[in-house]
């Protein structure tokens, strides 16, 4: 009576080496002394005590992993969350009434802010069927970035609806692969985006551009805070 449905849409290519965790050369578990703090994953300061998070959501291939990699001080890590809930038809397994275990992979990177604070940036697939996981994983986020690819705008609709409904501050970033002729106005219209939601263009491969996306988000959140305190 137990059916496991594995849905592992992320990480996006090119993630390089497949499975998450230590470098592939880490060898078997004989490396009991294997530290987590190799060059690609320096440890946090001992004084680190406050962690913040930003979620980057988008459809497959929108560039979430690329954006995370561009801003992260560590080589991005990947892991999975698994949750079990009553089957509700999402898995097209007619007649199976058992509980479904859904597994979703996600990537994340890290930016140390100062001696006490660290920011985690998560990349996560934005499709409807994953949101029950994100609701938990990303609750308490500073805000979210919806990364859109104009070739597949419809991938973003659900994420935008959901973030609006949750009241999570977010911005939309159009990851421009250089192959689209859409103006931001056209993208905004196609997404039916609220005028209060910032829309920016970026090249997720470029650190300076990716960091501007995060800056735009945090500025937006700050403006909301200021409005709220007036």
């Amino acid at each position, binding site marked *: 009576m*137990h059916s*496991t449905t*594995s849905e*592992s849409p992320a990480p996006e290519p090119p993630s390089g080496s*497949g*499975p*998450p*965790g*230590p470098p592939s050369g*880490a060898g*078997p*578990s004989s490396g*009991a*002394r*294997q*530290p*987590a*703090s190799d060059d690609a994953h320096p*440890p*946090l*300061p*001992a004084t*680190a*005590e*406050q*962690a*913040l*998070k930003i979620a980057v959501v988008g459809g497959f291939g929108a560039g979430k992993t690329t954006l995370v990699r561009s801003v992260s001080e560590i080589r991005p*890590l990947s*892991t*999975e*969350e*698994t*949750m079990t809930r009553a089957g509700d038809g999402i898995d097209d397994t007619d007649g199976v009434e058992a509980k479904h275990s859904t*597994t979703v992979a996600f990537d*994340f990177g890290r*930016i*140390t*802010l*100062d001696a006490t*604070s660290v*920011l*985690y940036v*998560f990349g996560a697939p934005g499709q409807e069927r994953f949101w029950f996981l994100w609701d938990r*994983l*990303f*609750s*308490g986020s*500073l805000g979210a970035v919806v990364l859109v690819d104009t070739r597949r705008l419809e991938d973003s609709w659900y994420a935008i609806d959901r973030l609006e409904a949750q*009241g*999570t*501050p977010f911005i939309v970033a159009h990851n421009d692969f250089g192959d689209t002729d859409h103006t931001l106005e056209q993208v905004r219209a196609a997404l039916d985006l609220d005028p209060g939601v910032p829309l920016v263009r970026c090249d997720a491969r470029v650190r300076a551009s990716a960091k501007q996306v*995060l*800056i735009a988000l*945090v500025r937006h*959140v*700050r403006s*909301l*805070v200021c409005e*709220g305190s007036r």
Partner: protein
Amino acid sequence: MTRSHRQEGPDRLYVITSGRSGGADDSLDAVTLVVAESGPVPGMQSEHARILELCHSPMAVVEVSAHLRLPVMIVRILLTDLLDTGRITARHPRPAPSPARPLASPDVLEKVLVALHDL
């Protein structure tokens, strides 16, 4: 532990948690920072020992999960074991934003902006 948990059947995860699928400390957020308060001791479950090694410096729950190659849900159960026995301590995100108060404080936002500009 070279295999990804993606190739693990549920059986191994069942064994690692002694059959538990719940009982994790609900306050353990994805980015709660975990710090070891003592080192591994002989006879300890290997996953517990590995966590204590990993958390010599503070490490977020999701990072522990990635390094152990175990799903976050399983890691939360293992971390709860160690919290309950005082072998680790947890530094939770604060203040925990809530639906009623979802936004971060201006001080925190300034700090984030400064750090991002310096990237």
